[in-house]
C-alpha cells in the first residue's frame, strides 16, 4: 500500500531578520491511506509548518516528501496548486468561507479551479453537503450560519474533489465544546465510513483523542508517535 504521506529527513529553515530559524529539524513520518492522525505540540513546535509542507502549501528546505508515492519536494507553485486542487482538502480554524457568497457556491469553489464541468458541480456539492448535514443551508450566506454550520460547510468544501488527504488545522479552535464534539464526530465518521485519510493539527488533547494515532512535535522534531489505545480499542 502506497503511503499518502511519506517524509524523510524533512527540514524547513526560515530566515527571519537575518537569523535562521529552524522550524523542522529532520522529520521522518509516514501516513497510510485510511489513517486518522492527530499532530500535536505547543506553538512553535513545527506542527503547523509540517502541515503546510504536507499540504503542499510550502516546500521543504531539505529532505524528501513523497505524496502518494510521487516526489513532491521540489515542485513549483503551479504543480503544487494542481495537486491541492485534485488530491487535498483543507479545513481551517476560521472556516475561511467567502463572505456574501452562498454555502453552495463556497462548496463548489475547489471544483471551479479543478475544471469540473459546471453541470456536475452543483450535484457533487449538494451530495457532499448532504453527507455533512448542511444541504438545507445551500442558499444561506456564511453570516447567516452558526460557527458549527460554517465549519461543516467548510468540511463539505474539502470533500468535493474526493481528496486522498484532508488537512484540518485546529478545526475546532473557534467552536464551543458541544459543537467541537459534533465536528470531531463528523471527522471520525468520514474517516471510518468513507476511508478518507485525515491529518488533524491541534494543541488540545481532548480533540486529539478522537484520532487513532497521535504524533507529538517539539522544537521541530517528532518526540512521540503513539497509537491512541482508547480509540483503537
Amino acid at each position, binding site marked *: 500500500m502506497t503511503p499518502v504521506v511519506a517524509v524523510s529527513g524533512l527540514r524547513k529553515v526560515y530566515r527571519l531578520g537575518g537569523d535562521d530559524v529552524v522550524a523542522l529539524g529532520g522529520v521522518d513520518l509516514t501516513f497510510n491511506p485510511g489513517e486518522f492522525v492527530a499532530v500535536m505540540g505547543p506553538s512553535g513546535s513545527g506542527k503547523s509548518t509540517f502541515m*503546510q509542507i504536507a*499540504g503542499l*502549501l*510550502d516546500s521543504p528546505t531539505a529532505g524528501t516528501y513523497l505524496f502518494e508515492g510521487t516526489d513532491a519536494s521540489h515542485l513549483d*507553485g*503551479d504543480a503544487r*496548486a*494542481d495537486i*491541492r*486542487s*485534485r488530491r487535498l482538502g*483543507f479545513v*481551517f480554524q476560521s472556516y*475561511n468561507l*467567502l*463572505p*456574501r*457568497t452562498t454555502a453552495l*457556491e463556497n462548496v463548489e*469553489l*475547489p471544483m*471551479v*479551479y*479543478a*475544471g469540473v464541468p459546471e453541470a456536475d458541480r452543483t450535484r457533487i456539492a449538494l451530495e457532499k453537503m448532504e453527507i455533512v448535514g448542511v444541504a438545507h443551508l445551500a442558499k444561506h450566506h456564511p453570516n447567516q450560519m452558526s460557527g458549527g454550520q460554517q465549519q461543516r460547510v467548510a468540511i463539505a*468544501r474539502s470533500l468535493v*474533489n474526493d481528496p486522498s488527504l484532508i488537512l484540518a488545522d485546529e478545526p475546532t479552535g473557534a467552536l464551543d465544546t458541544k459543537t467541537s464534539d459534533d465536528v470531531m464526530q463528523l471527522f471520525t465518521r468520514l474517516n471510518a465510513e468513507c476511508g478518507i485519510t485525515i491529518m488533524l493539527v491541534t494543541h488540545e488533547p481532548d480533540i486529539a483523542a478522537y484520532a487513532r494515532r497521535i504524533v507529538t512535535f517539539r522544537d521541530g522534531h517528532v518526540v512521540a508517535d503513539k497509537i491512541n489505545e482508547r480509540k483503537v480499542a
Partner: protein
Amino acid sequence: MNLRATLRLALQALIRNKARSLLTMLGIVIGVAAVIVTVAIGTGARVQVQNSINALGSNLIVVQPGSVTTSGARGGLGTASTLTPADGMAIASLPGVASVSPMVTLRTQVVAGENNWQTTISGAAPTYTYIRSWPIATGRLFSQSDVDSTAKVAVLGQTVVGQLFGNANPIGATIVIKGAPFVVIGTLAPLGQSGTGQDQDDTVLIPYTSAMERLTGLTTVNQLMISAASADKIDAVQSEVTQLLESRHRIVAPQPDDFQVRNLQSIAQAASATGTVMELLLAGVAAVSLIVGGIGIMNIMMVSVTERTREIGLRMSVGARGKTILRQFLAEAVVLSTAGGLIGVVGGAIFTIVVAAVAKWPTDIPIGSVVLSVAFSALVGIFFGYYPAKKASELHPIEALRFE
C-alpha cells in the same frame, strides 16, 4: 479556467460589492461620457462649418483671365480678355466637371419705373444657380433657349427687389439696364452676406449672351465658374482645366498662363485644420480623464487585493494557480473599466440627445469614437489592473491565509 469562467468569477466579485464597483467605475463613466458629448457637439459644429463652406458653391472652381501688360504697366487679374464661352463649353465636356457657367459681370444703373438702383449685373448660364447652390424664390430661372436667343429676361436678387419694387410683385415688370428693357421672370432666394461682407443679394441675373451682346459688347467673359462633380475631384478638375485652357490658348512652357484657376480649398483647409486642432484637444482631455479614471481603478483594486488577502489565500489553498488569481483580478479591473466605458457611452449619448433637443445644437455621435472610447477604457483596465493583479498572484498562500 477558461475566459467565460474567469469573467463570471470577476462579475460575481464585483456584484458582491455593488456600491464600491459603481463608485470605482464613476471615473471612467464620466471620462467617456465627456468624450462622447464633446465629440458629438464638436462633430456637429464641424458639419455645420462644412455646410456653410458648401453653401459658397458646390465644389466651386473659378477661372479668371490673366493680366495684360500695357506699355510696361501690368494690369491686375482679369484685365486680359482671353476667356470665351467656347472655353466654357470645352471645360463642360471634361470628366469630373458637373457644370460650367460663363460669367459676365458689370456694375451699372438699373431703372424700374420711378426707381433706380446701381447694382451688379451678372450674366450667367442657367447652371449658375446650381453651381452657387442658390435656389429661386419666385417665378423661374431663364433657360438654355433664353441664353441661345439672347432673351432680355432678368432674375432679381432680394436687395434689388426691395430697392426697385418695395413690397410689390416684380414678376412680369420691366427693368431697364443701360437702355435695354428686360422682363423680370423670377427672384432669387436671399443668400445674405458673403464671407467678405458683400451683400450677395444685391444682384441682377441675366443670360450671359444677353449681357455680352446688349451690355458689354464683347465676345469674352469675365469668369468661368465650374462645379466639380465631387469634393475629391476638385484637384484633378483644376489641373485638367489648366491643361485644356493652355492647349486651347496655345500657351507653351516658358510662357505664363493668360488665366488663373482657383478654388475654395484654402477655406476648406483652414476649417479642417481648426477641426484637427479641436480633435487633438478633445483627445488630450479624453486621455487625461481616462487615465485619472484608470488610477481610480488601480487604487480600488489595490485596496481590494489587501482586503481580500485571506480570500486569495483560500482560493490558492483549494487549488488556484498564481496565474488564475492574476487573471481573475485583471478580469475584475477590465470588467469594471469596460462597463464604465459602456455606461459612459450611453450616458454621453443621452446627454447629447438632450442638449441637441433643448439647445437646438447640431450633434453627431460618430460610431468610431464610441468604439474607440470603449476599447480605450478596456485598455485602461488592463494597464491599471495589472499591477494589483500581479501583487495578488504573488501572495504566498500561507501568509495570505494568516493575514488579519
